[in-house]
């Protein structure tokens, strides 16, 4: 009996760990709930309930003995789709019975501590290339290609550095878009760039909360109204911060 209660506790810890990694890495709310329920069911606890919002997970399991409930707070969120995919494959492994509780624990702990992000330089390079390509896609001209590339890359770089310096996401987004606006303005003023609007739109794209918007919509459609609305609010605040940063440059310079 005591052994089984112990096992219920372990299974709960496993599910919560998986859920936490997924939520912190930008997985959709309904996927987090689905993964935790599936994992618990595959390990022998059929009766589980979970309530997931972007800022916390409440998970309760009714195994043998009294029902247990645990709350996990999520404070830091980033985007790391590889971790979502890895946790997903661990959950698939448990469902199909290929790995047991202990192995799953080891794998999840490993995933949690791994730093899977692309190298910093690659990320900045990707941001600059994406900016310049978006500038072309929005009917910009080729002679603005290099300015958009530089201001997009510097904008993303400053976003990361400001975020390390002041850990308030909206403020660092505001500052980053301000830097983008300023740089693009200087490029146009010195005759290196030509169309200010196109350069700014292209360079701002890496900061745009596209993932949040899609996730918010998917969550709302899956019936997670609280999670969907709060993600929508985050997306709105982010775009407002970007807009304010650009507006500052456009109106005062």
């Amino acid at each position: 009996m005591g052994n089984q209660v112990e096992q219920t506790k372990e299974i709960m810890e496993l599910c919560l760990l998986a859920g936490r990694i997924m939520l912190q890495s930008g997985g959709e709310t309904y996927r987090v709930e689905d993964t935790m329920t599936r994992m618990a069911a595959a390990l022998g606890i059929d009766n589980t309930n979970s309530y997931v919002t972007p800022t916390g997970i409440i998970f309760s399991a009714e195994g043998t003995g009294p029902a247990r409930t645990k709350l996990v707070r999520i404070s830091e969120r980033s985007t790391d789709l590889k971790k979502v995919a890895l946790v997903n494959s661990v959950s698939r492994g448990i469902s199909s019975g290929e790995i047991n509780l202990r192995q799953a624990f080891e794998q999840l702990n490993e995933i949690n501590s791994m730093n899977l992000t692309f190298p910093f330089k690659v990320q900045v390079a990707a941001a600059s290339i994406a900016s310049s390509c978006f500038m072309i896609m929005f009917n910009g001209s080729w002679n603005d290609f290099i300015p958009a590339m530089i201001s997009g890359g510097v904008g993303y770089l400053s976003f990361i550095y400001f975020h390390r310096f002041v850990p308030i996401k909206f403020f660092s987004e505001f500052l980053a878009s301000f830097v983008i606006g300023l740089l693009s303005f200087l490029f146009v003023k010195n005759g290196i760039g030509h169309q200010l609007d196109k350069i700014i739109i292209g360079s701002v794209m890496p900061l745009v909360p596209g993932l949040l918007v899609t996730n918010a919509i998917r969550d709302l459609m899956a019936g997670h109204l609280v999670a969907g609305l709060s993600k929508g609010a985050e997306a709105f605040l982010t775009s407002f911060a970007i807009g304010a940063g650009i507006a500052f440059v456009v109106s005062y310079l």
Partner: protein
Amino acid sequence: MDVIIQVITSFIATGAFGILFNAPKETLIKCGLTGAGGWLIYYVLNGYSEDAVLATLAATIFIAVLSHQLAKFYKTPVIIFSVAGIIPLVPGGMAYDAMRNFVENDYNTAIGLAAKVFMLAGTIAFGLVFSEVINHIIRKINNRRVKHL
């Protein structure tokens, strides 16, 4: 020629976005292809009918259905393929224009543009919902086929 440039740039841009979202390395090319396909549909339809709403709807449905099928095939979460592809469709340029007009005290133009941005964002949402329905239908047809065999 213009279309080819658009396809190439959208492929690179969505692939680069895959890197920013830290998608697994082996899916980056597929992300790029999904995004390029969606943008091609948007670009051609938008140029042909001058109706951004219709073009966005078609492109969103294409991306969402394709990424669902890819996710099923490669056994990875859908979000990896769909997110990068949808980014180009987000009406960022128009939102910028709207905001710029607000700042310059031209509220009439700004509100018109803001309404359009809202319409386009709603269209993306509607496209995602619609594709969910299509996915359900595809799944049902497949299930029935399995049962008949």
